[in-house]
């Protein structure tokens, strides 16, 4: 009797140890920051840096749609949204509040690539899944980062434009705001192609917010100063729309220009019969980040960095994009279609 109970407890102990080892190795396979102690349905915190721009509203739309889908599957029960109104310090405070209220996942567009590092380390230590997309942080204390490649964006745009103007000519370069990583990275990406073509002269560069009006103003004053312009390397969709409008208002001939999937720009592209090329920062990055957070919480391994291939719009497929224009706001972005299969493929392609 004694012996058998001893045997039973010993084997139970062995079994327990085995289970523990099994669980341990499973924990190793789990994604970063995940401890496995959080159970569905999850609360998702969406730490937005600035909710006013249309791109952000559309992105939030894809997040809300994804949360609805996940709610139906019983995986998510609540979405908490904060808006830092552009202030990186406020965003840190809001992420701290999310930690304090014990959300299960934080999805984040960072207001500064460095500032949230310490608060994210705290969140990661508490087992909160952190998916960072669009504007990325430098720290590795996150579950996953999701983005397109800004340098590739700049490189492809520069190559298209140089090709379109026949390898030589005078161009303008339109950038986003100075000191912002996305804008810097796109510009840097364009450097190699520009250096390889010494016959391409850069007349001037602008730094404006990603809005039509300031870009139009900046290009208008450059047009007065430069009677001869062969092409415009624009590294943002609203910037391109502003440039096209500026050329139009001045009665100047349209020149080859690069751009983004801004609806206004695509419509101008069609209307003015431009020779153009555009890519996009797909708004569904938000939906994908939400999906990835839940996958990670469910114990699936997710890659530390998911690089989203840049969808390209050119004269061959722009009509397909414009055909869906009515589904998007007039000042919004016509993003490429997405579904769960695409998300699965992106997560698997590590």
């Amino acid at each position, binding site marked *: 009797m004694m012996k058998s109970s001893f045997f039973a407890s010993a084997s139970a102990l062995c079994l327990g140890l085995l289970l523990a080892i099994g669980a341990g190795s499973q924990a190793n396979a789990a994604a970063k920051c995940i401890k496995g102690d959080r159970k569905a349905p999850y609360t998702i915190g969406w730490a937005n840096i600035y909710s006013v721009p249309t791109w952000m509203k559309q992105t939030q739309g894809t997040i809300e749609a994804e949360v609805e889908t996940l709610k139906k599957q019983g995986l998510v029960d609540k979405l*908490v949204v*904060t808006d830092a*109104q552009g*202030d990186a310090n406020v965003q840190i*405070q*809001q992420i*701290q509040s999310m930690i*304090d209220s014990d959300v299960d996942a934080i999805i984040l567009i960072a207001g*500064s690539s*460095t500032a949230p590092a310490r608060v994210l380390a705290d969140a990661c230590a508490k087992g909160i899944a952190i998916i960072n997309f669009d504007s990325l942080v430098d720290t590795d204390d996150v579950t996953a980062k999701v983005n397109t490649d800004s340098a590739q964006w700049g490189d492809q745009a520069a190559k298209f434009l140089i090709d379109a103007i026949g390898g030589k000519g005078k161009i303008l370069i339109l950038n986003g705001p100075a000191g912002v990583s996305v804008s810097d990275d796109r510009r840097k990406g364009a450097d190699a192609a520009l250096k390889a073509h010494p016959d391409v002269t850069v007349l001037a560069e602008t730094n404006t917010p990603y809005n039509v009006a300031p870009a139009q103003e900046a290009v208008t004053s450059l047009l007065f100063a430069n009677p001869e312009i062969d092409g415009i390397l624009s590294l943002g969709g609203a910037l391109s729309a502003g440039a096209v409008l500026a050329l139009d208002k001045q009665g100047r001939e349209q020149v080859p220009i690069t751009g983004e999937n801004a609806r206004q720009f695509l419509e101008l592209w069609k209307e003015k019969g431009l020779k153009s090329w555009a890519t996009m920062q797909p708004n569904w990055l938000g939906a994908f980040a939400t999906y990835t957070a839940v996958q990670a919480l469910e114990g699936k391994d997710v890659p530390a960095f998911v690089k989203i291939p840049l969808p390209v719009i050119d004269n061959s497929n722009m009509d397909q994009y414009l055909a869906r224009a009515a589904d998007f706001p007039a000042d919004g972005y016509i993003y490429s279609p997405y579904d769960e299969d695409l998300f699965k493929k992106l997560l698997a392609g590590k």
Partner: protein
Amino acid sequence: MSTVPSAGQAGALYWPVQARRNVGVRGLFAVVLAFLFAYGFLFPGLLTASGFAKFTQSWFPLALVAMAQAILMLTGGISLAIGAMVSLGAVIAATTMTGPLGVAGGAAAVALTGLGIGAATGFIVVRLRLPAIVVTLAGSFIIGGAALLILPRPGGAIPEWLSDLLAGNTPAAFVVLVLIVLLWKLYLATPLGLSLYAAGENPVGAYRSGVPVDGARIAAYAISGLLSTGAGLFVAAQTGSGDPVIGAAFTLNSIAAAVLGGIGFLGGQGTMRGALAGSLLLSLMISVMFFLGFTPVAQYVAQGLIIIGAVAIPQFRKVQQ
């Protein structure tokens, strides 16, 4: 309202005078207290050492810039360069402290830059008689540009131990803030400090009475600069790095906090405790509204209503009296 207790007054007069200076901001104090209780109720973790530490850390830089703005507004000045100064302080700290200068050298560089730029701005405004709003607006471009030159994109580093000390799980930031407030009290007892209110409220009268008006105002600009770059140093420590545009929002927030705290635009009116309470309210609102589950749009509206409420309620009382 703006009576400064002079050294000669009897101690018995001190508290009644201080109480009278509170009249305009009693409503604000009540609102701040209500928010503090609400926050503690919604998030009990606030009462733990680390919860209190994290909360005071998010308030601290705003408290410093509110003081920096208040001291200028008390002399009848204003600064639109506060945000740029915060950025500059942050990038100087993040680029020097892990280099050969070390933490002490880096902190000295931050302090000297703040004092120097502040004093220079003060000199231009006071001696050349140029409008402060124009000088500091131009200054904000120069200073912001300098920050971008020092650190073109976010980066740099702050020693880990300094970050943990100032922005870890201990309320060190709160202790520093208390020390700064005590220093402010001491400063008000010095001749320059005593001149501050007089120079703001009635510069001509003060000058005729032999008050060093120009000196007091230039000193205010220098101290304001020091507080701003100091806030930048703290932000760098809090975030572990430097960001050349991190301070941008502080300019407007510092003015909002000071005005909310009852500091008048015309100089000589208001108290530092009011400005501090104003900054505390701005910081509290963000956290409390999060815990109340307000959507961002509702937060915009609520923020506006609370600010109007805190400023207007005491005015209604005054009208009724």
